[in-house]
């Protein structure tokens, strides 16, 4: 009798855990995963998808420890992260779910519209300190950054700063929403946010990656036709051993319906 109860309990637990999926990682991808999870569960009510943030690094660590099924990363998996997974006998599979463009934003009253990559590098490494040095009003520049080691922070460092370090003592905000909020209140502010976060409270800067020959406006269209330079893929990583478990969700994200969610939350579709 006791045994049957026990087995039933185990079975029920197993049943539940088979349907439970945990997604963990990049904060940038939270809106996408959350919305997708919501819609996915409407179609397949037997699934329970948990979404947690914490940063891209956290996602990989969780994958390593087996505490998540899907890791969402706003950057490519690092070489030594791949090695660590390999050492644990795990091979991961990468799925590009969407693209995200980083927009450089300033206060709406700022007269500056165009900036080159070199100027941006100067601003965020602390070498350019006043807006008049880049053709604006005489007003100190207040750069805002994300917290260290979020995928966005690293991607910006890699793409715009060419791997140089940010100036020490940069204002850092715990999340992108807070950056938008601060920039909309601060006249001399500049910061970087995902395209999805752009709204009327801030002004997006046109960026040039060719020493000022052409300045490109951040927009979905420009990101799609690859003229806007600061674009990064957004990935899901999973253990190939758990493929069958996560496949339905991955397939959903890549389906037409899933990609519609991608553009709804402000990212760029993969196709």
């Amino acid at each position, binding site marked *: 009798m006791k045994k049957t109860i026990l087995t039933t309990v185990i079975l029920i637990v197993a049943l539940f855990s088979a349907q439970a999926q945990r997604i963990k990682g990049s904060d940038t991808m939270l809106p996408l995963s959350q919305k997708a999870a919501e819609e996915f569960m409407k179609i397949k009510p037997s699934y329970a998808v948990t979404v947690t943030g914490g940063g891209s690094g956290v996602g990989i660590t969780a994958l390593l420890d087996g505490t998540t099924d899907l890791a969402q990363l706003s950057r490519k998996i690092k070489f030594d992260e791949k090695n660590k997974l390999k050492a644990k006998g795990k091979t991961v599979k990468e799925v590009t779910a969407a693209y995200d463009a980083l927009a450089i934003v300033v206060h709406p009253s700022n007269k500056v519209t165009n900036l080159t990559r070199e100027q941006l590098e100067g601003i965020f490494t602390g070498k350019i300190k006043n807006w008049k040095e880049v053709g604006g009003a005489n007003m100190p520049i*207040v750069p805002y950054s994300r917290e260290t*080691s979020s995928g966005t922070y690293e991607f910006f460092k890699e793409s715009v700063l060419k791997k140089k370090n940010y100036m020490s003592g940069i204002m850092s905000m715990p999340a992108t929403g807070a950056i938008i*909020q601060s920039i909309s209140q601060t006249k001399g502010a500049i910061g970087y946010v995902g395209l999805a976060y752009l709204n009327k409270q801030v002004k997006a800067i046109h960026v040039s990656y060719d020493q000022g020959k052409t300045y490109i406006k951040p927009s979905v269209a420009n990101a799609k036709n690859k003229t806007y330079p600061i674009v990064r893929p957004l990935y899901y990583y999973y253990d190939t051993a758990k493929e069958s478990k996560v496949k339905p969700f991955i397939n959903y994200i890549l389906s037409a319906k899933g990609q519609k969610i991608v553009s709804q939350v402000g990212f760029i579709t993969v196709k």
Partner: protein
Amino acid sequence: MKQIRQIIERMVTVMLTLSGSVTSLAILLIIIFLFKEGFGLFSSPSVEKGYALCVQTSNPIETLTPEQIKKIFDYEITTWDEVGGSKEEIMVFRFDDIFSMYPEEEFGTDYELLPEKLGEVIAQNPYIIAYIPEQYLPQKNTSVKTLPQKNIQITDFFGGKEWLPTATPSPQFGVLPLIMGTLWVSFFAILIALPLGMGVAIYMSELAGARTRKLLKPAIELLAGIPSVVYGFFGLVVLVPLIQKALNLPVGETAFAGSLILAIMALPTIITIAEDAMGGTPRAMREASLALGATRWQTIYKVIVPYASSGIMAAVVLGIGRAIGETMAVLMVTGNAAVMPNSLFQSVRTIPATIAAELGEAPAGGAHYQSLFLLGCILFVITMLISASAEIISKRQHNKEI
């Protein structure tokens, strides 16, 4: 029957004793875990774990400090003579660069040819500094010299002024701006809260009638009960824009915003303790003062406040303790820039805010993770010192009352 009861009594006694030791055990565990992780930092290499810095054997350079390494990779130091070498320009090479120099196939299926290729690159460029994983070190190549690994130094940690925990290849763990930022914000919080709190405490203990006190007391308890994240939210949407507009500042997220919020949060502590201390003044002393013709106000500031001074000091100390450890509210309003504070109207980063913002993204066991635990140790030690001194001070007050 009696025996059973005795056994039960004994078991209960044991259980109670065990429960009694739980708090001490918790403190012990906290100390062990915090310090074990935290002090691990000083046995971590100053270059990211698992990586090494290589130069050519012909290069006379023997060692580099973490600061020099950071500056080289930020292109702030561009020639070798700035760090004691020849007059040549430094060629910075990061591991990822190798993948843009050779096609992926040439490294072999398991990257077994990678060391060889890295060796090739280093051998070809005499003024290179290469940052590569230890497992791919080209050990056989005689023209490659690995710079010796030094551990992170205690002096760099406590004396450093740069907090860049994720800088590659050499993270900077200068904790000074964080400690100063924490003390700065807390100090001004108390400066704001003390006169206000003292005033209210005097009002409540000496002036207010029973009915007013009945109203004030719960109000202050409610103020203490509001969660810190709500204070932070309030600060974020109300105080920060208000401060920016009213004072016409370039940024609203300032130490001042943090101090204001912390002052409000420390008020209940200060008021309650100071009021208790003043309420303890012996009736005889008050009456003697009044009988000598002093006004009530004179009695308050010449007799009662000096009498309660130790209690008031304890209130101040505990208020500071509350302010130093506060996390969420400060994280949301101070802007978190890790700079040495020199004005109230600039952004600062505190220790608790740093832990809260970074721990989630620091890989467990790494130097960054350990440094955050070390910050926890610092916080722990500061608060222990504070509660010990508050204890001593309030004991003095207690002795006076007897």
